[in-house]
């Protein structure tokens, strides 16, 4: 031994710099993937903001001036705000009532907590909007016809109505139905963590069940209610399909519809105004966030303890069955009824209030799905995109989540993680516009390709995949990975043999969500899809704009069936995988 330390470092020891190990190949891959996601997610948004002031190498305020010059800008803003805010208020009311009934009273139904978050996915908004049209259209709506028959029997004769889905209340109703699950998710989670002693104290002080709800439970839940409201408005500002299918026939113009019209259905596309409107959406969403932030900052709400075991169940007494029936009825009406509308119209072959129950057949499905090459192509494209996007998205999200989870303390990594989840907080519509601006023209020329759709879907829905992957990562104890390392396993081996199998149930669920969102998407599809890269959402829109209602219903039904089957199979599968491991 001649060296001063007496020992020569072994050849396989890694060199360090500044106290850190060189990253392993796994870390490098994770970093590269995170970087790609970051670009995919943040650049479109930046592109929109830059385009606002900068066009063809010049500083310009054309986008602003042209947007302000739009004739009906005031009406457009007013309509959008009324629908979005009105439906959000209603959604908070309905969602929190449902959450309360189902988590904190003896009227609860265990299975609903698991089912609720998936309801909007089971019936994609585009299919739901078509379904409600089939049911409640003023003249031919099935429910309206049946209601008229019923009223006729008691001597009241109507030519149209009594309901009209293409109206203010119809539009707000459908928006509300789709916003309720967001409120339900945030509020029920908060309710499960709320200390039941607060409620017991109120009951002991002589307040009844409903007074306790109004005076104690609801105020204590204000932050969760605020978050639910925020999510509802965010959903509303980004929603295109419901606005298009229900709002447009009613003469109610909403910003998302106008943006798509300017970009896709005008020639040449009017980018300036579309950009201006997108920025208005960003401002609205930003304002909602700021308000939420201010409320939380000032509030005294934060101190609710999370002692879930203290959680009590309110006895509703004789109201119990009524409340339970109400909850069930809500789920049935909002989910099953529109599906029934879709199926009945498509099986009947044409849309009429006189359903020929004896001669229902699958002709419309045959025509819509198998005899129209364009629709076939659309289905093939959507399925492929769903599979490829779903698998790729969830795997990438899993690798990045693992990387992030191991470095929670690092500010840079935290920032990166937050940025990847950004589209979840910015309007989908705006991200899609950004993708179009960024990739459709020079130098990428991806307009009308399969790839631009894939990238668009990933940018929009990766946050969801990423959240699902985070939840899956959180279930794996830190020591399991460490045990692998101490046992001599490298990082990739640990990923393959330990992380991946253990995360599988969660990842499969995340894949299902991604797949269903991609296949049922209309926001990105309306902007990024065209005749060269047609997808289901876009095809439904085309048929809506000039095709038979039976075909429209058949297409929507097919979408519902595909979505439903995939969801049920995958959720069943993920439970099975989970069970196999522990038994």
């Amino acid at each position, binding site marked *: 031994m001649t060296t001063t330390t007496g020992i020569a470092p072994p050849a396989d020891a890694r060199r360090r710099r500044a106290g850190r190990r060189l990253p392993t190949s796994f870390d490098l891959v994770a970093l590269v993937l995170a970087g790609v996601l970051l670009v995919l997610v943040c650049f479109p948004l930046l592109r929109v903001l830059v385009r606002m002031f900068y066009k063809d190498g010049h500083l310009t305020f054309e986008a602003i001036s042209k947007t302000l010059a739009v004739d009906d800008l005031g009406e457009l803003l007013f309509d959008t705000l009324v629908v979005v805010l009105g439906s959000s208020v209603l959604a908070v009311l309905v969602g929190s009532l449902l959450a309360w009934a189902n988590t904190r009273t003896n009227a609860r139904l265990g299975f609903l907590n698991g089912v609720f978050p998936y309801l909007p996915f089971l019936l994609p908004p585009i299919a739901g909007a078509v379904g409600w049209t089939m049911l409640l259209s003023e003249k031919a709506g099935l429910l309206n016809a049946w209601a008229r028959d019923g009223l006729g029997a008691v001597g009241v004769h109507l030519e149209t109505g009594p309901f009209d889905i293409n109206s203010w209340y119809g539009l707000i109703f459908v928006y509300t139905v789709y916003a309720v699950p967001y409120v339900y998710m945030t509020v029920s989670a908060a309710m499960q963590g709320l200390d039941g002693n607060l409620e017991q104290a109120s009951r002991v002080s002589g307040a009844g069940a409903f007074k306790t709800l109004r005076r104690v439970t609801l105020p204590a839940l204000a932050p969760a209610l605020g978050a639910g409201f925020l999510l509802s408005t965010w959903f509303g500002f980004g929603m295109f399909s419901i606005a298009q299918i229900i709002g447009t026939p009613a003469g109610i113009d909403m910003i998302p519809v106008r943006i798509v019209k300017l970009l896709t259905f005008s020639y040449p596309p009017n980018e300036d105004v579309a950009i201006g409107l997108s920025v208005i959406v960003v401002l609205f969403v930003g304002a909602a966030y700021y308000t939420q932030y201010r409320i939380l900052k000032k509030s005294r709400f934060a101190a609710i303890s999370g002692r879930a075991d203290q959680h009590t169940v309110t006895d509703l007494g004789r109201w119990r069955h009524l409340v339970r029936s109400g909850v069930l009825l809500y789920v049935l009406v909002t989910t099953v009824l529109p599906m029934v509308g879709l199926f009945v119209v498509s099986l009947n072959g044409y849309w009429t209030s006189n359903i020929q129950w004896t001669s229902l057949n699958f002709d419309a499905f045959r025509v819509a799905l198998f005899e129209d090459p364009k629709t076939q192509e659309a289905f093939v494209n959507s399925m492929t995109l769903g599979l490829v996007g779903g698998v790729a998205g969830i795997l990438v999200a899993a690798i990045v989540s693992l990387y992030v989870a191991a470095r929670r303390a690092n500010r840079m990594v935290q920032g990166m993680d937050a940025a990847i989840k950004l589209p979840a907080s910015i309007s989908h519509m705006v991200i899609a516009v950004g993708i179009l601006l960024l990739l459709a023209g020079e130098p990428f020329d991806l307009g009308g390709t399969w790839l631009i759709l894939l990238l668009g879907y990933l940018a929009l829905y990766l946050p969801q995949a990423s959240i699902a992957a985070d939840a899956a990562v959180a279930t794996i104890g830190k020591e399991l990975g460490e045990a692998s390392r101490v046992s001599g396993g490298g990082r990739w081996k640990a990923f393959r043999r330990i992380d991946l199998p*253990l995360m599988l149930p969660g990842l499969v669920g995340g894949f299902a969500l991604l797949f269903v969102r991609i296949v049922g998407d209309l926001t990105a599809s309306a902007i990024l899809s065209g005749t060269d890269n047609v997808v289901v959402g876009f095809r439904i829109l085309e048929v809506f704009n000039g095709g038979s209602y039976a075909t429209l219903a058949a297409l929507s039904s097919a979408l519902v069936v595909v979505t439903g089957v995939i969801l049920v199979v995958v959720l069943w599968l993920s439970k099975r995988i989970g069970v196999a491991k522990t038994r």
Partner: protein
Amino acid sequence: MQATTAREHGSDVPARPGEHAVEIRALSKRFRRRDGTVVPAIDEVELLVEPGEIVVLLGPSGCGKTTLLRSVAGLETPESGRISVGGRVVFDAAEKVDMPAERRGLSMVFQSYALWPHMTAARNVRYPLENRRGRRMSRKEMAAKVQRTLELVGMGGLGEQYPAQLSGGQQQRVALARALVNDSDVVLFDEPLSNVDAKVREQLRTELLATQRRLGFTALFVTHDQGEAMELATRIAVLDQGRVQQIGTPTEVYARPATEYVAKFIGNTNELSGTWDEASGSYTTALGAVRATKRGISPACLLWRPEHCSLHRERPTSGNGLEGRVVAVLYLGTHTEYLVRSGDVRSRVWVSGRNVDFQEGDDVWIGIPEEEVMVYPTGAEVSA
């Protein structure tokens, strides 16, 4: 041999590699709290472990014992110092060497067992064999080795079970088998017995000791349980606030604690503070003069153990005598504990056997032999 503190230890042992199974030199790591303050997790730690030893790292939670163990494993990166395992440098801050955990050739048993729930017990145990460097083992060899190791820990028939089907004790045995299967020279234990119930813990401890004697591996064992430390350790390293307070055999650490902290942490103590009085050759305390073998420390903290003193009706003729009144008598099976109050001072006295000679309210004398009084300078220890 006089019990030594870390400082003394570090200075007089020459750095001759190859002799020690684990050699830790001047190892430090600090943690930054959320509020920005920096706390040392381990502070200039020196530790030499001979081959075949079980060295127990003992201390309360937050003393840095787990950080030290994880640094040896390669799961934490210290800021300075050096670690070698079996004469091979695995970490050296000055030389910028930091071997990743998977190449250090160590084994570790985790507090939570860390068994992979989607693999059977046998697959769990096989995993380290699959990662062996050099010649790859055939499937047959691996299966035989796994079976032998499972039998060694008394789990021969349960290889096909999943961890969730096993009891806590059984899971811990599988975890031990996984650590032993690769014939590592050094096995690290991170409070492996703290999650199993008392009876099973005792049994596992005995078996662990027997297995270690049979296989002869070196063990670094982290625990906060001093009984466990006494039973398992060849030597105990007592840690406090990231520093090694004393390293010694269980007997040394118990009988001759190097510091007031060690004396109080290991075993029970009674305490008096006093000042040295040269004229009388004793310490002046609130309860009168106390004589001790160690002289001349002032101000001093005087400690003695409850089992080293006795109770008398009259003032004892030899040794120290403290007057007091019995305020409580607790029969504890193996011994009886008397709580004696003298002024503001309460002392505990343990008398073996069930012979309850004294009762509540009795006036008594506590007899303490001079050589059983441990004397430490007051204020030298910041920590309690």
